[in-house]
């Protein structure tokens, strides 16, 4: 049982870290610029497609990640300075409508450029399992994802807490007007933040590609989870995004399996197999509702 729990914890950690990469960008954009960007998931898709395309051309997975990060960050910054910038002053409804339109445009644009999907496999060297404990082999590729996620989370944390740019970001998130009044070049800051968010999306997109599928529309499902993460964690807070992402990852992983087993204990099998999966798929939202009821501002609110 303990081996099972450990493996599920690793699965939850792996999923949570990938969610964090998405949620980090989303929470900064939402927190710093007060902008709801529904097209954030599309950047994840764009990153995955660029990565898969480069891997297909060169055969190098590493090159794919680097290319995807640079390409998506550049694309994100271009998008921000050409289009999204004009939306900051609008209300949230206009932002939601405009970025929803952007999702549709990017989906069809990607389809025109690359087709409906692209193949992407993990590097052959990481295809097999690694024996962590006697009786527990864990896929090597998922371990790499965990490692990459941890490194990125740590660097992002250092960037936000220890650097001058991080201080500006935090200042922007907690009180935008005051930060502007103090002479922060908010325009450039926004563009850079948006670029970093897009780059993180690309990392998640390429790393998740072999586990899921690189296909048009891949960003929509995961975007909803990313929003849940930042609502739980507190909008604008990197620490909140990390904790929220890990919580969501673990709740989802355990919800999918433990819930069904639990129901089988005290319900007839027919009913258990009906109720278990139904409840498992809403477990995350039940969790979010609980957080909102107890701490409506999220676990680690950025604004005082």
């Amino acid at each position, binding site marked *: 049982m303990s081996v*099972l729990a450990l493996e599920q914890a690793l699965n939850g950690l792996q999923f949570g870290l990938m969610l964090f990469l998405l949620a980090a960008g989303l929470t900064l954009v939402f927190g710093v610029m007060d902008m709801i960007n529904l097209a954030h998931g599309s950047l994840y898709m764009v990153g995955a497609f660029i990565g898969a395309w480069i891997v297909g051309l060169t055969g190098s997975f590493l090159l794919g990640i680097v290319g995807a990060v640079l390409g998506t960050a550049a694309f994100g910054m271009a998008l921000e300075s050409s289009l999204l910038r004009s939306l900051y002053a609008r209300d949230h409804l206009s932002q939601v409508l405009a970025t929803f339109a952007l999702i549709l445009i990017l989906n069809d644009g990607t389809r025109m450029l690359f087709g409906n999907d692209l193949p992407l496999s993990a590097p052959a060297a990481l295809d097999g399992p690694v024996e962590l404990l006697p009786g527990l082999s864990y896929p090597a590729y998922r371990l790499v994802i965990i490692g990459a996620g941890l490194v990125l989370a740590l660097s992002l944390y250092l960037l936000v807490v220890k650097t001058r740019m991080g201080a500006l970001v935090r200042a922007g998130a907690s009180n935008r007007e005051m930060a502007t009044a103090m002479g922060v070049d908010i325009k450039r800051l926004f563009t850079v933040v948006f670029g970093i968010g897009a780059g993180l999306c690309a990392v998640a997109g390429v790393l998740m590609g072999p586990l899921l599928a690189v296909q048009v529309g891949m960003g929509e499902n995961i975007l909803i989870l990313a929003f849940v993460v930042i609502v739980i964690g507190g909008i604008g807070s990197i620490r909140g995004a990390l904790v929220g992402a890990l919580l969501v990852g673990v709740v989802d992983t355990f919800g999918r399996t433990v819930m069904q087993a639990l129901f089988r204990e005290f319900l007839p099998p027919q009913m258990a197999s009906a109720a278990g999966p139904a409840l498992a798929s809403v477990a995350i939202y039940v969790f979010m509702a609980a957080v909102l009821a107890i701490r409506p501002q999220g676990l680690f609110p950025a604004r005082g």
Partner: protein
Amino acid sequence: MPSRLCRSTLASAFVAFGLAIGVLPAHAADKVKVGFVSTLSGPSAALGVDIRDAFLLAVKLNGGKLGGLPAEVIVSDDQFKPDVAKGLFEKNIKRDKVDFMTGVVFSNIMLAALPEALDAKTFYLSPNAAPSSMAGKDCNPDFFAVAWPNDAYHEAAGQFATQRGMKSVYLIAPNYQAGKDSLSGFKRTFKGQVVGENYTKLGQLDYAAELAEVRAAKPQVLYVFLPGGMGINFIKQFVGAGLGKDITLLLPGFSADQDVIGPVGGAMSGLFNTAHWSPDFSNAANQKFVAEFRKEYNRTPTLYASQGYDTARLIDAAVRDVKGKLEDHEAVRKALKAAKFESVRGPFRFNTNQYPIQNYYVRTVGSDGKGGLINKSFSEPILKDHGDAYVQACAMK
């Protein structure tokens, strides 16, 4: 749009052909019209495309005719949407006045559109979907399931696990009707113990949590019903988690078919699966089909392709049998039911509910000798002359 292109070239070819042979005898129809509605775009398009390609190949190999009459096949795309399929059925039946409808891949789409055909007394020949309801209480004299009943592959897999002396099984399927039906099919023939049963979200692609449960449950066999992309991801992750050493992964045929072997690759080697057809069947009809399909489309046909091909040849046989008198509905029905053609799957016949009685085989994925992988069938069927469990509930005799 390849489908539109196909349709117009075919149509003009047939018009030209009709002119060339001149006036036909007055008592017979002057051509056969077939409405072909299938999923030809989007992520699930590969299946419908294979059925269409094989159907059109059969017509082409027949010189553009079905049963001696020039054939017009009206191909359209249901876009994986039940309401679109329903509209297309209505158009094909009311405006184009087709003699036969066919093509739909998915049960839910077919069940939505089917009343359009059955209410108008137009034959529907299903090249894939064969839900249990249409085999039992809802059976209909104008509905023929040409491929295989929805449960059959799973019953065959359960039988195979029992025959191999497997004591314990873990089952995984998506949480929807076909998923539940498939697992009950497996349990109907499996005599060992079910140590775990997991219903996942439809469309789920990451199975890490489920695989951890499987590892802990230590079953001898893992049977999964995960069509399309779900299955491709599952098999990759099953291998990546190192579970293949201790657990036999058993699959229904369509989860280990040529369209899955491609993206999964070498990890498929040695997997067992169950189906009613295999590309290596030695009967003459199948040899010709596989060779011609490869020549025309430069790929190995899938189960779906074999089903589309058989559907066209069933129409061919029936139209020939009634000598082109398509207006005699009852005679056409009898001719369809007699199914006087050499099927690529080998011997088969229709039961009283117009679902097939046929053999099912275990297949294993092995080398094709050219660096690729292909399915090879066991010589003895795992289920012989097998029908379905619902025929008693059907009122047709």
